[in-house]
């Protein structure tokens, strides 16, 4: 009996500690991150839980709000180039989220839309506008491969802590939809602690490797690249620019299936009553000129993109031209001081579209 009393007291204390941790985590997120919008930008200045796939999976609660919402999806170019604060200020303070994913492909975009719809209240779906930023790389891949393999980093993140089962299209939460926001809230302390732990162990890992002289493939740090002199940077970029072969020598091919996936996604979003704006994002001219895959994409995309206009509330915006090469720090990503130009161009193009339904 005494042992049971002891254990019960310990359990009760643990519960209290967890509630305290939850309160601290909530305050932390309010101070460090944002509870108004979801922004998955990988930024070394931001600390824990609010960036990358964890932000997309566990930080979706702001999508619970009602009212006009703009949700940016895409790969790293959309993540870096389409910044929510810059878009929001040009769209009259509209809430803008960015759920883009590094190395994202079309299949990931569909998963991202599903993840967003899990949280968005059904009555607010009509107020939601998705902006999918694409470039030709999103439609290339190894034959019969969804995304350089069968599972993506989104799947891996969703499976962490066992919150989701399945993968890709069949990714589904293991708790009732109605309880999902509560679970996301309850997981906050664990996610923050987990990201912190990961950050610390990554530091030790790289220090041990460096100390032992174990060499890995050189890591790519955009921040470091930005600091290089122009000539040297161009040299590095030329090495880094998108190749048409994977590291094992397999050729990337334009996958009509991925183009069709985009059409299917447009149909789905339209059917849900939301709006979709597909944006062809820019790349520097030297990249476009030297990449045969880009030209093939320009040709092959036309029948698919023309299908988009058949769906209600689905639009296409072309942003491929009009940006100076100097505004890119590598083959696809703009310098931070150039993102305002992207925001200005996009907001000008979509403002009339957004007004349509209003």
């Amino acid at each position, binding site marked *: 009996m005494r042992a049971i009393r002891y254990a019960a007291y*310990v359990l009760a204390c643990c519960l209290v500690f967890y509630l305290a941790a939850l309160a601290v985590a909530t305050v932390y997120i309010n101070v460090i991150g944002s509870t108004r919008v979801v922004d998955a930008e990988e930024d070394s200045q931001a600390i824990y839980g609010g960036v990358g796939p964890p932000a997309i999976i566990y930080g979706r609660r702001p999508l619970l709000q009602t009212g006009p919402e703009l949700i940016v999806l895409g790969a790293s170019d959309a993540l870096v180039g389409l910044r929510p604060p810059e878009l929001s200020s040009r769209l009259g303070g509209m809430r803008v989220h960015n759920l883009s994913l590094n190395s994202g492909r079309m299949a990931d975009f569909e998963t991202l839309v599903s993840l967003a719809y899990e949280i968005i209240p059904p009555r607010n779906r009509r107020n939601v506008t998705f902006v999918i930023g694409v470039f030709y790389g999103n439609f290339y891949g190894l034959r019969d491969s969804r995304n350089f393999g069968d599972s993506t980093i989104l799947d891996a993140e969703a499976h962490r802590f066992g919150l989701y089962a399945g993968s890709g299209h069949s990714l589904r939460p293991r708790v009732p939809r109605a309880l999902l926001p509560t679970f996301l809230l309850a997981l906050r302390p*664990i996610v923050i602690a987990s990201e912190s732990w990961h950050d610390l*162990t990554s530091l030790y890992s790289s220090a041990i490797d*460096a100390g*032992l002289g174990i060499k890995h493939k050189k890591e790519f740090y955009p921040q470091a690249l930005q600091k290089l002199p122009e000539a040297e940077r161009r040299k590095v970029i030329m090495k880094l620019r998108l190749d048409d072969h994977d590291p094992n020598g397999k050729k990337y091919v334009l996958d009509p299936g991925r183009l069709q996936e985009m059409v299917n996604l447009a149909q789905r979003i339209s059917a849900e009553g939301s709006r979709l704006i597909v944006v062809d994002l820019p790349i520097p001219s030297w990249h476009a000129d030297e990449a045969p895959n880009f030209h093939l994409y320009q040709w092959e995309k036309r029948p698919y993109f023309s299908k988009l206009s058949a769906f209600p509330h689905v639009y296409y915006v072309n942003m491929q031209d009009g940006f100076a090469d100097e505004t890119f720090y590598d083959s696809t990503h703009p310098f931070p001081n150039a993102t305002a130009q992207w925001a200005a161009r996009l907001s000008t193009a979509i403002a009339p579209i957004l007004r349509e339904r209003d």
Partner: protein
Amino acid sequence: MVSFTSPFFFVFCLTAIFLLRMTSANALVMGALNLVFVASFIPAPLAALPLLGFVCFGYCAIRAARRFQVNAVLILLVAGTVFLFAWLKRYAILSFLPAPNFAYATIGISYILFRILHLVIDCSDGVLEPPPPLAFLNYVFFFPNFVSGPIQRYEDFHAQVSAPLPPVTWLTIHEAFGRLVKGYFFVVVASSAASWIFDHAHSSFYAALSRQDGPATIALFSVSATSYLVFLFTNFAGYMQIVIGVGQLAGFTLPENFNRPFASKNFLDFWARWHITLSNWFKFYLYNPLLKAMASRWGTRAVMPYLGVIGLFVTFLVMGMWHGSTVIYVAYGVFLGVGIAINQLWQVWMTNRLSAPIYHELRERPWYFQVSRGVTLGYFSVAITALWIEPEQANRLFSPFGLTVFATTIVILSALIAIFGTLVDAAFGRMVYDGGGTKDLDPPASGSHMRYLGAIAGCYVVSGAGLTALAFYFTPAEHPYSTAHKLFLLVLAAFTAFLIGALVGAFDKPIAHATSYFGNRREVFLQTWMAFRIFILAGISTIMASAIPEFIYRAF
């Protein structure tokens, strides 16, 4: 198969504690619990047959030993038991013999061997009476020490199951919970971390060894060897803490198997602190009889110390061979034997050369302690290479290049451990690895408990931050850590180190002392502190396993 983190284990332990307490450890109830526990490791009834056969043979041997009480019979019975054990374990030396042609379980058989031999020898000597069958089965299959010990003596076990179970006091529960927290921290967190470093280093060590890159091989061998030692210790000692804690809650006192081995003064002292019950078993049943036999034949005052050296060498050779069934374990045994023999010879030589009082005084000097401990741990780290090295790489290690690496690594590791130990002691006294537990560091009688607690907490905090600062120093310069990020990581590491201190129980004693004037509220405070430790442990385990207990999802 039972894992110590599985829900089955928790449910089983709760049930076992409850039933044993309710029935005052009734032999039948204990037998049923042992049966359930052992069965959880065995996939099919047929797979249990060889193990059961071995235990039956053992019981017959015990009865025969008691009946005949003749040395020749005893030798025959011991040899037969060991032979059967070696055959079932498929020792390389018996590979020419046919083995059972079906998969069978040998879980726990190594420790059952010790229990059976202990009974055979002691019954033959007339020290013990053969236990009744059920008591015998409960002794050899006793669930807390079935898998990996500790090796409890029968008389100790019998005394505990025969007498009424001790009452459950608050202190018993608190101590048991403390052991469980420490044990799970060691097994789930510390050994995983050490294993991660080991995995990181040892494959690179193999690569460096095969390309014969001297400095890299030595550096990587040193890291692999020390990380494996830490892994082995935390895994084994953690497991011991768990089973002793469970035993305590059920009303049993199991023998300790580890006593701060990293504070050993020398190799002999190390074996009095590491896997204590195994060392004691070999001392009682191999070393002592061997020394007695040699002394009766050749014993003179001058020769006795050298007979001791031979006895120790043989004992540790056999102990090494017991650890595994392949040839590499013979090398391991030789290595342990050489280490212990050199230690003993050194003591004999120094005593003869300096006289016992001067040598004793020398041993008490801090620098001697640091050097001696460095050599002990450095040597042992390298000796246990046999437990992890792949056969192909072991062959490379036996080449002239490999042996040079081997010897150099011992020297370098010994020096590094001695230097590290000296620095830690100079900075923090012995608080870090003693956890405030040594007599000389017990808090003063009054006045400065909080200062003492602060000093120990400070040790952990400074160690965590220092280690992280060192990591920043080694991290490639181009890695984009901002100043704010670095600061955050330093604070985080310091806090994590504090939590680790809390989990290993480093603050328990000073907190207990500091709260002594709380009166009745002291128990509540200490229970809350225990809850905090459990909460942190659960959090770290969840993060490391990236998994939330399945029952939470199933509940929905």
